[in-house]
């Protein structure tokens, strides 16, 4: 039986950058995934936005690390992963939203984030053609940005291979053998492996992997649909997040990616639970109505492709990251709540430090927000 330092279950947004972080630190790593290649579940369905402007210390810290990795990747390694510091913006169309956003900004400023309140006129310059009726202003965080999930995960993957990480694709983990409170074997439908540490980074399947070991991980995927248009010359910069809930949907957001394509997705309300990824007829009319009202210029832009993916949700909207108390050599890195792509590289670094017992006080503070044994009663203010 092949033995590793670390086995990661799931070659997705979290597993692949983690494999890279570990391999860079000379750990013998194996990543196992049931799909045929990296990022074939929810990673490729992410629209690519990356922001540090959250409302929680842990997420901010991790995302800042991610942004550092994304933004310096090309300089460091040469591959273009489509990084652009195009910023995030949250326009407010009601006074209540303005107040909410401004209150959040106070917290964000306290963490040293670069985010400002801009006037409707300034916002119109940034997003020419946006609806200005009732526009109160918008937050704008120019250091946030975007990168191609497809290119990024493949760049991380290639680099991790260079550092010696191994991957097993089209292999499904079917059992985890526990001896004396420790995973002694990772059993797949094709083979079996052992490792000093096992990381559950199984995304949609996190709960099922937990169940194989008799532990309960409160991760329930819900579905979101996204789409991408044809490319055109750049006509606006930042990610636009329309946070107003209406019947049938909560927020939706979009930006123009590095190829010039507008990419967008919407949060259904109430949530649609389950992992069915087949498209429904509801999505396009629902999102189109909202988008052309907010930004009429988009009406002639052609929709090229749509898809459906999941946010592996936790009860409070925060990921679950940390060592298991029940299984001594298990680390969970699950329940990314739709932010696995932007948190992944930063989390990879943090988890590598957990594995190697190198966590700093600041790291420990950041991980507090993701503590697997918190009571899950809170709710993130700014998802």
């Amino acid at each position, binding site marked *: 039986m092949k033995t590793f330092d670390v086995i990661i279950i799931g070659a997705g947004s979290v597993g692949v950058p983690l494999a890279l972080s570990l391999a860079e630190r000379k750990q013998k790593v194996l990543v196992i995934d049931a799909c*045929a*290649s*990296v*990022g*074939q579940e929810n990673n*490729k369905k992410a629209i690519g936005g990356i922001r540090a402007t959250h409302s929680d210390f842990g997420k901010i810290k991790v995302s800042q690390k991610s942004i550092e990795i994304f933004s310096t990747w090309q300089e460091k390694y040469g591959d273009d992963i489509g990084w652009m510091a195009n910023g995030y913006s949250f326009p407010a169309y009601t006074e209540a939203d303005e107040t909410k956003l401004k209150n959040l900004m106070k917290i964000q400023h306290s963490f040293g984030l670069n985010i400002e309140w801009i006037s409707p006129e300034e916002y119109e310059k940034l997003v020419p053609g946006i609806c200005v009726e009732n526009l109160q202003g918008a937050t704008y965080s120019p250091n946030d940005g975007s990168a191609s999930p*497809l*290119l990024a*995960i*493949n760049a991380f993957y290639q680099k991790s*291979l260079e550092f010696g990480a191994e991957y097993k*694709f089209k292999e499904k983990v079917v059992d985890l053998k526990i001896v004396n409170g420790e995973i002694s074997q990772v059993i797949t439908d094709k083979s079996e492996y052992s490792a000093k540490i096992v990381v559950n980074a199984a995304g949609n399947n996190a709960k099922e992997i937990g169940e194989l070991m008799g532990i309960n991980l409160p991760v329930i995927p819900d579905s979101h649909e996204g789409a991408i*248009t*044809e*490319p*055109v*010359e750049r*006509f606006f910069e930042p990610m636009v997040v329309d946070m107003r809930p209406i019947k049938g949907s909560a927020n939706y957001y979009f930006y123009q990616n590095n*190829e*010039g394509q507008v990419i967008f997705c919407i949060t259904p309300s109430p949530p649609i639970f389950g992992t*069915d990824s*087949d*498209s*429904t*007829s*509801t999505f*396009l*009319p629902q*999102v*189109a*109505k909202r*988008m*052309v*009202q907010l930004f*009429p*210029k*988009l*009406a*002639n*832009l*052609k*929709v*090229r*492709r*749509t*898809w459906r993916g999941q946010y592996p949700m936790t009860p409070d909207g925060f990921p679950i990251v940390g060592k298991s108390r029940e299984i001594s050599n298990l680390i969970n890195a699950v329940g990314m709540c739709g932010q696995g792509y932007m948190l992944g590289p930063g989390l990879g670094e943090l988890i590598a430090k957990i594995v190697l017992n190198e966590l700093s006080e600041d790291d420990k503070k950041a991980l507090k927000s993701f503590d697997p044994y918190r009571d899950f009663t809170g709710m993130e203010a700014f998802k």
Partner: protein
Amino acid sequence: MGNRIIEHPILPILEREKIPFYWNGTKYFGFKNEMISSALFANGIKVFGHHHKGGSAQGIFCANGQCAKCSVIVDGVLMKSCMTIVKPEMKVESVEGLPKLPQTGKHKISEIEELEYDVLIIGGGPAGLSAAIQLGKHKIKTLLIDDKGELGGKLVLQTHKFFGSQEDSFAGTRGNEIGKKLAQQITEFPEITIWKNSTALFVFKDKKVGILNNDIYKLVKPKIILNAAGAREKFLRFKGNSLAGIYGAGAFQTLVNRDLVRPTKRLFIVGGGNVGLIAGYHALQAGIEVVGLVEAMPKCGGYKVHADKLARLGVPIYTSHSVLQANGKETIESVTISQIDDKFNPVKGTEKTFDCDTLLIAVGLESVSEFTDEAETAGIRVLSAGDAKEIAEASSAMFNGKIAGLKIAKEIDPNVEKIPQSWFDKAEILKKEAGKTYDYNITEIEEGILPIIHCLQEIPCNPCSTVCPTNSIFMKGDPIMDLPHFEGKCIGCGKCVAVCPGLAITLVDYRKNAENPTVTLPYEISNHKVLVGDEVRCVDIDGKELGTFSVTQILDVKVNNRTQLIKLKAHKNIAKKIVSFQIQKAEVSQQKETEIQHTSDEEMVCLCERVTAKDVRDLVRNGVSDINQIKAITRAGMGPCGAKSCDNLIKQILRREGVPNEEIEPNTRRPVFVEVPLGKFADGGKI
């Protein structure tokens, strides 16, 4: 308008209203109701813009609304020129790099209409129309949609007479006329709703089908779907394959036979299946020089009668040859072919280069199966017919469409009669590929008048046996597949000569002059006008010259046909061997002597995102063999066409690189079938 077809042996040239439009600021004229692409081609404009990645010239490719290579900017909005009708004073511009965001006026927001039908037929070609007729007869509430403005599917483009049997599939009638007949028939049924200019975008999981109906988005909820969406053409890898002027047979036939545009002066054809062979014949009918045709296999895959027809008229067919490279700067200027060995590798030293301005790719079809797969995923009962079910002739599509129609009718209404077993038997025959080829069996008789049958290959075709007024032409064994035989009395009516789709029957009349009998030949290339007294170079079945003879009489067969019967006198020793006469001069097919000006090393697999075979090969050799990962890294398949061309080519490379077929994952397919402006989903068209 120098590239208009002003004379055609089959198609009527009607007076059309001229429409002024602007191309990059210069005024041109198109015709009313004509697509922009055809209007541009008619004015000699073949390059519609340059790709934003690398700047390669873009032009027509599918002419079927499926890709986006023919995109132009129409009054500020990026549009597919092949699907957009030219309007007076329209400002059409080339697409140079990434287009600007189109500006919009006021937008409307309204609910999307939802409709229910018992049956939805996707595609109004031979299969869909035949199914609709059955459903109409049984009063089943049916919606038939087609993405074009005229029903008939690819029948619209077919100027040749059809094979099959007269009784079941209008054999002997020209394709475009069959299309009209079927389209007319379905209008007689009040239960059939017809939506033209309507594209199915996706069969969604919630059992609704998104359809763009005359630019209005609608959702349709059917109980049963019939996928009769036809097939798409396969593309081919070779150096320079993305030059403008390289496109499929469908695009060619659309330009020539639907829109009466002569898109090329010198055409070279890749592929000796029926599609390529027939396209070559259509080209000759349109007055286009056909420089040659290559076929990779040792024999043409199409019907022998089609290949013979082309060879006899003077078109060289190079079997066991393939395209090595297309040469040219922006558009193709010449093509280099070479012989290939049994492993399909080029044989060094056998290269031949020919000047041509267009390369027609006819290397096979694949079913448009998406709607079937989507419906199955959604749990909607779905059947398929025609090329969407399996690639075969239109005669087969009509027949299995008819069966599917009745089958669906019975599923909706159990009182509907059973499908006769004979239908299934006939369907089996009609879809058959060509069978055995036999040697000539020419009668020794040299008296009276008699038909000579130059049809030596088993194909599903029998109109000669049904038109003979004395019932003297018949099939010995199978009534459709077998070779026709003559036995009995010939009255010299010439019906068999005129009806034969393969132009493979002649008459030899010894009655007036037994030494020099009169030979009657079918002819339908009136661009090369033949007059009484003309000297014509007669050829045998394979195109071998038999001598020059002068035409003594010409008869026009008017009824439903337009074939001419050409008579001449020839010596009895060769009279029975004469099948036709050459019209294309040997000079047309001469090899190029001057040097090749421009060559390209780029062997493109994804034309939309400009991904080369090398890009893919390098990845595979570097361990990346999952097609979806290749897509993620290279963007192959992420362009506007949605992996409609590159999917096959990438899989070919994977197989060539040693990836076992069973390990190749399917390419993930997502909505939407064609790109649609976002605003269309926001406005259901109601005020």
